[in-house]
């Protein structure tokens, strides 16, 4: 059995990355022209990696399934991106960002990786500003910041509620420049369906042209997987409809270990489910918790009256409201980390205090923020003794400037005005901390195959802090991978072009064709979505916000049954040789049906509660997560051996040399 080698450089924590960079093997510019790199995914991680690799001189082929790199799921990120700039002079530093991230991740991530992330974070902001990313600014012309959960400094840079859009358009513009120069060949509307491994090394992919249906072979000296997260295994999530695990799952089945698959982030502030027709859930950014206060009524009779429409939220007196986060966690209040906030909402709703018809919603209320900002603005505008109406009008203007697009989004979906009535929100699946296992160089357990962005497991442990995914994606793509990949590729300067006529390509292509053929010839009766929804329900009920051994065991057997049923009864119309969206979905759901089982197994194996992984058997008397550092301070890394149920666990022990491991407390 192989031992996992994380290849963390020796030396002082703060020196590791710079030492490593100066000792790493490089490829000289003339040789880079003879080296091909495939990048699957053009979100923040893949887009920034493709652009940077092309600038360095590699020949890059980039793939995405949307019609343009600009549409990757990263575009939807709302709230912001962290960086240890300390522009606010509130005591921030590289060490503090590092510390907050490790603690936020409930001591289940690697010190060295996280430190590097914090170290390069400041560069990201410089880089993006140089590219013309229009971050929010103050009147003095300098960059503005806001706060996110789990931290006590203001280090989040933002562009209204569209930070991901602006950052992705920045990376896309850097890509566009290289596409124009011919250094990146872009394959839009292409889906990678298999990895090709030659002599134990990643040497190419099989992709399907989604317009013509053609199956194509693409070779390269290294393959980067930046295909995003797998939250859609739950069917309903805040992820884009197309987000999927396929690229990651295919490399997993070819030998890349999958780490901590059960670490899922449930985001506390999303618009609640409205009915069975629902196809996705919409996030209301965490940044709203800067100004919004979360509450439910204290009295059960008020809850009933609200549900029956006899009372409106504003009729509930201040003393009859339970601001439960402020009550339970006075030090962090509404800005506790996501896992804590989500569980607290579930706790109140399970106790019967939910404020909508289904009992699964709590209030996010801007009433006091509107008043506070209104008074401030009235003072600035020298309005004496302003009346309440003026105050609220001014306050609403401030809130609109900060979160206008989110409020509009909410209003369009719910048909209710959040400036007047508090928003109703409930937790929803949002992000996956787990992913492909990578070493310090972001290489997977397959030589020459790398994973970046949400697709890897690297930096967030058991819980990710808000505004840190964008940071990680861009750190991986702009600043880490372009260096570390050279170390591997320096051995490939004499390899020459990889032929796509090799038997390994033939074999891989045959395999892909067989799968696709199966789908279009199967005589089933149910649509792909039918199975996806069923899988989602099992996952949400038993592998969701709270898990227990009994439920997990049931989930495993239910998923296996559902998988059998899927292969028997799925119906995919049309043919392979055409634009066929049902066929695309079928392949993705087939992979989710395997991943789901592995997630449940991983959750069952981890007999502790940590971060987003909450096992009901392991909690304190107050209902807080109970970690077991003695037995579970490791990365659970799974090797595929032919059936997800027979996956083999490899443990990478985590050592904390620079941080004292403590019980996480936000009280």
């Amino acid at each position, binding site marked *: 059995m192989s031992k996992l080698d994380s290849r963390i450089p020796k030396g002082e924590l703060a020196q590791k990355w710079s030492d490593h960079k100066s000792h790493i093997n490089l490829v000289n510019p003339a040789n880079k022209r003879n080296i091909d790199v495939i990048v699957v995914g053009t979100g923040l991680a893949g887009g920034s990696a493709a652009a940077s690799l092309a600038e360095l001189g590699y020949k890059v082929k980039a793939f995405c399934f*949307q*019609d343009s790199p600009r*549409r990757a799921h990263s575009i939807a990120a709302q709230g912001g991106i962290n960086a240890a700039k300390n522009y606010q002079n509130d005591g921030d530093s590289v060490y503090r960002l590092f510390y907050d991230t490790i603690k936020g991740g409930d001591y289940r991530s690697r010190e060295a990786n996280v430190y590097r992330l914090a170290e390069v974070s400041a560069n*990201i902001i*410089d880089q993006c500003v140089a590219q013309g990313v*229009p971050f929010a600014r103050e009147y003095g012309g300098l960059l503005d910041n806001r706060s996110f959960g789990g931290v006590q400094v203001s280090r989040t840079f933002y562009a209204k509620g569209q930070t991901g859009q602006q950052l992705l358009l920045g990376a896309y513009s850097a890509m566009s420049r290289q596409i124009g120069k011919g250094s990146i060949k872009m394959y839009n509307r292409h889906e990678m369906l298999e990895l090709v491994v030659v002599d134990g090394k990643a040497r190419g992919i099989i992709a399907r042209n989604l317009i013509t249906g053609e199956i194509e072979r693409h070779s390269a000296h290294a393959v980067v997987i930046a295909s995003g997260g797998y939250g859609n295994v739950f069917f309903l999530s805040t992820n884009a409809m197309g987000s999927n695990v396929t690229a990651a799952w295919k490399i997993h089945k070819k030998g890349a270990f999958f780490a901590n698959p059960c670490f899922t982030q449930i985001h506390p502030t999303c618009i609640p489910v409205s009915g069975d*027709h629902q*196809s996705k859930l919409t996030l209301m950014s965490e940044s709203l918790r800067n100004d919004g206060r979360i509450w439910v009524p204290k009295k059960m009779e008020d809850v009933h009256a609200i549900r029956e429409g006899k009372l409106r939220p504003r009729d509930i007196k201040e003393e009859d409201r339970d601001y439960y986060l402020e009550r339970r966690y006075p030090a962090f209040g509404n800005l506790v980390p996501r896992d804590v906030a989500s569980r607290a909402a579930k706790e109140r709703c399970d106790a019967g205090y939910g404020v909508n018809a289904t009992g699964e919603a709590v209030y996010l209320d801007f009433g006091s923020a509107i008043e506070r900002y209104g008074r401030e603005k009235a003072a600035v505008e020298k309005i004496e003794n302003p009346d309440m109406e003026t105050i609220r009008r001014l306050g609403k203007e401030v809130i609109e400037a900060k979160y206008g697009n989110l409020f509009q989004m909410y209003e369009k979906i719910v*048909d209710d005005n959040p400036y007047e009535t508090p928003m109703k929100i409930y937790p929803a699946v949002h992000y996956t901390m787990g992913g492909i296992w990578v070493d310090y160089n972001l290489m997977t357990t397959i030589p020459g195959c790398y994973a970046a962005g949400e697709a890897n497991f690297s930096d967030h442990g058991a819980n990710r802090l808000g505004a840190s995914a964008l940071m990680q994606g861009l750190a991986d793509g702009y600043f880490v991978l372009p260096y570390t990949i050279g170390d591997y590729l320096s051995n490939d300067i004499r390899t020459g072009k990889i032929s796509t006529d090799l038997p390994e390509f033939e074999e891989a292509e045959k395999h892909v064709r067989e799968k696709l053929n199966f789908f279009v010839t199967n005589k089933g009766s149910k649509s792909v979505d039918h199975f996806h929804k069923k899988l989602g329900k099992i996952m949400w009920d038993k592998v969701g916000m709270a898990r227990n051994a009994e439920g997990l065991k049931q989930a495993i057997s239910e998923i296996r049954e559902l998988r059998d049923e899927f292969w028997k009864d799925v119906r995919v119309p049309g043919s392979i040789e*055409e634009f066929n969206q049902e066929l695309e979905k079928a392949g993705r759901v087939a992979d989710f049906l395997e991943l789901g089982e592995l997630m449940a197994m991983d959750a069952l194996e981890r007999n502790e509660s940590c971060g987003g992984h909450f096992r009901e058997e392991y909690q304190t008397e107050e209902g807080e997560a109970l970690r077991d550092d003695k037995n579970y301070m490791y990365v659970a890394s799974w090797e595929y051996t032919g059936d997800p149920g027979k996956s083999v666990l490899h443990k990478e022990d985590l050592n904390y040399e620079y941080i004292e491991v403590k019980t996480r407390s936000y009280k």
Partner: protein
Amino acid sequence: MDLTLKIWRQKNTSSAGKMVDYKVTGISGDMSFLEMIDVLNNDLVEKGEDPVAFDHDCREGICGMCSMYINGEAHGPDRGVTTCQLHMRKFKNGDTIYIEPFRAKAFPVIKDLVVDRGAFDRIMAAGGFVSVNTSGNTMDANALPIPKDDADEAFDAATCIGCGACVATCKNASAMLFVSAKVSQLALLPQGKVEAERRVLSMVEQMDKEGFGNCTNTGACEVECPKGISLTNIARMNREYLKASLTYSEK
């Protein structure tokens, strides 16, 4: 509610298309327009028929993937929204809804309601960027303060999602609103000013090559743009273009 849908069906780019009638029942006002199409497609699949192909991904109005020309309007009857954000409460029981793809010479139909907007990418590759390497070795982000008003205006222009509704709406199928949004964003920021002249010339040249029509100032694009991209961007681009054509010479 129960609805009649008249949907454009076209097998692929080279085949002819036609409008086909469908009925959907039990649609609730809380559904999004795309969820309504999901209901139809699920029925079609389970009956063994070819579902309606349409582009979509984020379903929250930000990726720019969804399109659809609904009852003669790009992204349908509501204002300031994309098709995925359009809700069925905007319709009433018994309505007949016409659903077509975005039509423009530069946007060929791929299948049904799916069109090829690759022309937008090619315009961006012609100059929609700041020529700075991604090394991170740039100056500190706060070394160059930018007046808040300029930054805000640049941001507003930068919110374009590249959906193409402006093109589909314009009687000339002009891409001016889209191109001017990027030109403006970068021209307003000191980082982008340096190569502003070259940028506007190359982007406009590519735009013309792609077969988009001319702008005759009807302003329909601004009305249908889901992100409220303003016509002032077109005016700014025209100024930039004029200035550049007079003074710019390739060194």
